[in-house]
């Protein structure tokens, strides 16, 4: 299906029809899917902003991948795919991963980026081993691999949606409540510590919030791409605002919008999973922000650079060199 064939009027009409179908909530699962996508986008956008600003972006990737062993263990213990045990397993696994990253980072000859890489891949490896075991042994099969890896928001159950909504409200409320200490500890940790803000506790709380967000978002975006929804909206937002309320608001907005549009695209085009669709929408927003955002966007930077060059040359021409230019004699 190439771009050229999209141009035929017939196809355009079809897209139009499906869009109307989508937004008219003809089917309950579509309404759920849309709600879930928006919440996932907004939630991940919010939590991820703090990760991006604290240079913890790839912890999101680690958290996503490390839910797998927990999910498998929960499945083996509970014997079913019901929401609560699966989510609990995923959460424990993700939290454990965060702790292990910390332990390794403080260990001998450590590098924090390698710590994330080690935990991400080893936890996922454990998960794969368990998954392969399940596929041989279990009588009920776990839902498609594709859905878990890449997301399938249309398949989201009412329980999962409820869990997502609860987490969104709780974390959203907590973020607003603690916005000041969160912001200060993000931008200036040493100052925050000096005024009595519990920087360590905030760090662990953030990792906990990350694990929670990842666990409820995996159904929509999948394990591999949940990190994208955490990173991209936050990374885009910094091109628009300097202070936290603006950055956070923009990230949430862009995230939610990416979620909605991604779900829509996924609905229209069969065979396109929601995860990749949401990510590509978010990436488009990012590129626009990178190009045109007022704070550090490429367009403005180019303009400022040209102004600066002009100013420097003017200064060099206009000034009669005030410095004493003494040429030292050769040798001694």
């Amino acid at each position: 299906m190439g771009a050229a064939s999209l141009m035929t009027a017939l196809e355009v009409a079809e897209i139009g029809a499906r869009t109307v179908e989508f937004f008219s909530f003809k089917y309950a699962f579509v309404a759920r899917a849309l709600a879930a996508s928006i919440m996932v986008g907004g939630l991940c956008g919010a939590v991820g902003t703090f990760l991006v600003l604290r240079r913890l972006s790839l912890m999101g990737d680690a958290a996503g991948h490390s839910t797998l062993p927990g999910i498998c263990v929960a499945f083996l213990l509970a014997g079913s795919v019901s929401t609560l045990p699966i989510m609990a397993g995923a959460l424990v696994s993700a939290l454990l991963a965060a702790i292990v990253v910390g332990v390794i980072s403080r260990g001998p000859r450590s590098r924090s980026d390698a710590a994330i890489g080690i935990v991400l891949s080893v936890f996922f490896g454990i998960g794969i081993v368990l998954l392969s075991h399940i596929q041989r042994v279990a009588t009920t099969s776990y839902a498609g691999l594709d859905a878990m890896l890449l997301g399938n928001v249309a398949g989201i159950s009412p329980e999962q949606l409820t869990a997502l909504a609860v987490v969104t409200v709780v974390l959203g409320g907590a973020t607003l409540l603690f916005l000041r200490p969160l912001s200060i500890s993000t931008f200036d940790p040493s100052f925050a510590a000096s005024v009595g803000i519990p920087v360590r506790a905030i760090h662990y709380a953030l990792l906990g919030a990350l694990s929670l967000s990842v666990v409820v978002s995996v159904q929509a975006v999948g394990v591999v791409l949940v990190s994208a929804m955490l990173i991209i909206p936050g990374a885009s937002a910094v091109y628009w605002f300097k202070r936290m309320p603006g950055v956070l608001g923009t990230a949430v907005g862009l995230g939610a919008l990416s979620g909605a549009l991604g779900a829509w695209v996924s609905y229209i085009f069969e065979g396109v999973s929601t995860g990749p669709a949401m990510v590509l929408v978010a990436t488009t927003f990012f590129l626009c922000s990178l190009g045109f955002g007022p704070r550090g966007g490429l367009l403005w930077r180019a303009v400022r650079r040209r102004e600066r060059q002009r100013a420097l040359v003017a200064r060099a021409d206009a000034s009669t060199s005030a410095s004493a230019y003494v040429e030292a004699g050769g040798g001694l």
Partner: protein
Amino acid sequence: MSEAVLKVSGLTIAYDREPVVEDFSFTTYPGQLIGIVGPNGAGKSTMIKALVGSLEADLGDVWVKGVQGKKARKLLTYVPQRGSVDWDFPVTVYDVVKQGRYGKLGLLGRMTKKDREIIDDALAKVAMQDFAGRQIGELSGGQQQRVFLARALAQQGDIYLLDEPFTGVDAKTEAAIVEVLRELREQGACVMVVHHDLSTVGEYFDTVMLMNKRLIAMGSTAEVFNKENLRNAYGGKLAIFDADAMAVAGQGG
């Protein structure tokens, strides 16, 4: 009068609207031991970095022995500030000094006896021969500085640029390094050192460059350290530097 080794004209570097180094011009010759001084934020490190190509300059030209561009940079031997090295890296003292020979050896060249002699010689000059097998993370600050100086010596260039080699270093090491630099000068090299301590400038260096974004003065300590130049460089800190200026001007190059 010998040929100029380094000629800089109109060097200007700016991060934003305000230039950090402005309209900087000077010429240096073989056999000079030059101290570059100025207040914090004067652009000393920035200027050096631009010369060796770590930074892009906005305006200006640099000639090294009459050559410009990449070829010119290869003729400069740069010893950066100690901060940016990875002390965990699996190299020993000997390995680090050996890196100084890579320029001549290229990718596949075998190490000859001459290369080994140069490395041992460099280590001996900085008194680090006994540490040759140590991983660099096991060294003290002064020892680390000496290893990087040895690497520079092993390169066997004749134009040296050192960025604050005496920061965080014990007195014995400082004296040792000064000795090495003096020897280099005797051999005809041109050595430029970004220096932070006004009180030792006259004692260590024969030529001084006083700068604060611009070059304020260049010459012997007696010529450069007068009240007016110091005022231009250090601005409002005049009261403190009055006494120092007299003391410094009293020492001579």
